[in-house]
């Protein structure tokens, strides 16, 4: 059984003057224990909202409007809030792009990690602190015994992200959801944090849902990749297949439009137009206005995510 199975998940925002838009529109995917799924897409595609759905932390007035989120076979959407609080941190933890907003500025980092430890484990205050110091050391904070007394603003962005990771892994969750965990960091620090995540994952057998816009990060870290566009998953494949033989025209265009180190070209390929507003999606396939392969039939219906040989799926009638 998969660790995480998301079925037909739908998340909506109400519109002023009635009606609603779906930021996440009937997406389904699975993630096995210890594996890494990269969830990739451009701003507004619904990837961050998907992450918040998994922890049931959707900001109001947004709401989860349908579907199931099975963690170890248990539907998180059916749990009372009390039990959901036990799941957060203990079984599913999350780290964000900007750790400063997620850390309390008036508490030392050691006490915040200790608090996370004590939240789900029957330990004394002293044990929680010692565990916190050990965790800070494990995530690569030098001289953790002393740095545990620092406040968040005294640490660099990379160190703050390490503190977030220490909090996230404090209760040994089976699933870590990481939303753009390295996007705000410099490239040398990003490399260290990605290495740390890999080491922790391998040591603890933790599964990772890695949300990012950076295809380079995905290529290095993920086992499988799902590409999102306008609230839907348009393609999912094992990482090598996705990069070597992308099926969806959007995936193909995305891969061609990014500059690649050491591959200097005079011009980049571009995707014409821009991502459509969720309020104003074209009928049928949401990508068809920008798609070089679109035909009249693409306007008729939303293409379903169909299974293809080689453990992959694509939502395109032309692929």
């Amino acid at each position: 059984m998969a660790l995480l199975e998301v079925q037909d998940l739908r998340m909506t925002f109400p519109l002023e003057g009635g009606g609603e838009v779906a930021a996440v529109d009937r997406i389904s995917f699975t993630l096995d224990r210890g594996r890494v799924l990269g969830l990739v897409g451009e701003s507004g595609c619904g990837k961050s909202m998907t992450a918040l759905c998994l922890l049931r932390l959707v900001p109001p007035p947004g709401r989860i409007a349908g579907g199931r989120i099975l963690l170890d076979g248990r539907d998180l959407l059916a749990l009372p809030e009390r039990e959901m609080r036990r799941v957060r941190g203990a079984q599913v933890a999350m780290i964000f792009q900007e750790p400063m907003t997620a850390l309390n500025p008036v508490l030392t980092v050691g006490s915040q990690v200790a608090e996370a430890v004590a939240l789900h484990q029957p330990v004394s205050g002293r044990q929680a602190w010692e565990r916190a110091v050990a965790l800070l050391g494990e995530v690569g904070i030098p001289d953790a015994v002393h740095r545990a007394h620092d406040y968040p603003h005294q640490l660099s962005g990379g160190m703050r992200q390490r503190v977030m990771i220490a909090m996230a892994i404090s209760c040994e969750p089976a699933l870590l959801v990481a939303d753009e965990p390295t996007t705000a960091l410099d490239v040398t620090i990003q490399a260290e944090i990605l290495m740390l995540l890999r080491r922790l994952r391998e040591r603890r057998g933790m599964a990772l849902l890695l949300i990012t816009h950076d295809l380079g990060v995905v290529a290095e870290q993920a086992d499988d990749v799902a590409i999102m566009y306008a609230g839907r998953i348009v393609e999912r494949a094992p990482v090598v297949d996705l990069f070597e033989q992308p099926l969806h025209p959007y995936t193909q265009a995305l891969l061609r439009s990014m500059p690649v180190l050491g591959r200097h070209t005079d011009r980049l390929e571009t995707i014409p137009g821009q991502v459509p507003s969720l309020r104003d999606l074209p009928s049928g396939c949401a990508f068809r206005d920008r798609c070089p392969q679109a035909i009249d039939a693409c306007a008729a219906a939303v293409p379903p995510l169909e299974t293809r040989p080689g453990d992959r799926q694509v939502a395109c009638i032309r692929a």
Partner: protein
Amino acid sequence: MTTPAPLVEVRDLRKHFPLGGGLFRRGSGVVRAVEGVTFNIRPGETLGLVGESGCGKSTLGRLILRLIEPTSGDVRFEGRSLYELGARELRAMRRAMQIVFQDPYGSLNPRMRVAQIVGEGLVIHGMGTRAEREQRVRELLTLVGLPADAGDRYPHEFSGGQRQRIGIARALAVEPRFIVADEAVSALDVSIQAQILNLLQDLKRRLGLTMLFISHDLRVVEHLSDRVAIMYLGRIVEIGPREQVYGDPRHPYTRALLSAVPVPDPRRQVDRVAVTGDIPSPVAPPTGCAFHPRCPHAMQVCHQVVPPLERGRSGRAVACHVFPADLPADT
């Protein structure tokens, strides 16, 4: 071979920001944001300026346009020192030098229509009649690929990529010869970023623009630049033709940066140059070579002596005691 006279000459430029008292425990000290930078930009050339946060690259860009005053040093534009100009002459010079910012949201006045924003520079510099200015604004909007009716609308009606096009049209309005682009594509999604990069490439060719392209993104800089400068803690550590800096990086920091960039090839084994630790504070930079605490090759001399930026035979310059621009193997 004669090289044309440089359009921009930067000479031993320094900027130290005083630390305010009160909030800081020690109450004094300076941030050495730019610490003795020297380079030229030739006409028609794009110089990419790369570095991580706090390295001083944005401060350097603003010093070169004299948007802020330096602590010491000089910037010459077409042979004339910007710092010797009076207010009137400086304003005239400003026509020739423009900047495009990262944040297309924060840098456009939300209460002005796009035509006013783009045409403001023309009014300030007294260029053309009203009818000519209106015509020029329409041409500029077309040039950067915006719809014909864009001029009548407000910035908030546009997407991030379109707002960046507005910012570029505004910069181009006064027919500058030199543009500083400061993280101009960093806030954009990859598909939109590609559109703006191609636009900058086109404009560079059609208008013969000279550009300082500042970015933390090595992929984007490689794409657009003829020459590349790598900055670390206020100093240039390596500068040279793009192919040399990217194809055969010399400074250990350049190598670390390049090897840290994720490559979109899942079959490639990740093989990183190990650098550890954080970027030191520019308030208390390390002695000697500022990179030595993170450098896997550091020797005794690196702790004590700041390595000078020395030019090699091939035109590249490196500031490193261990890996100079001309390796012994080259001779």
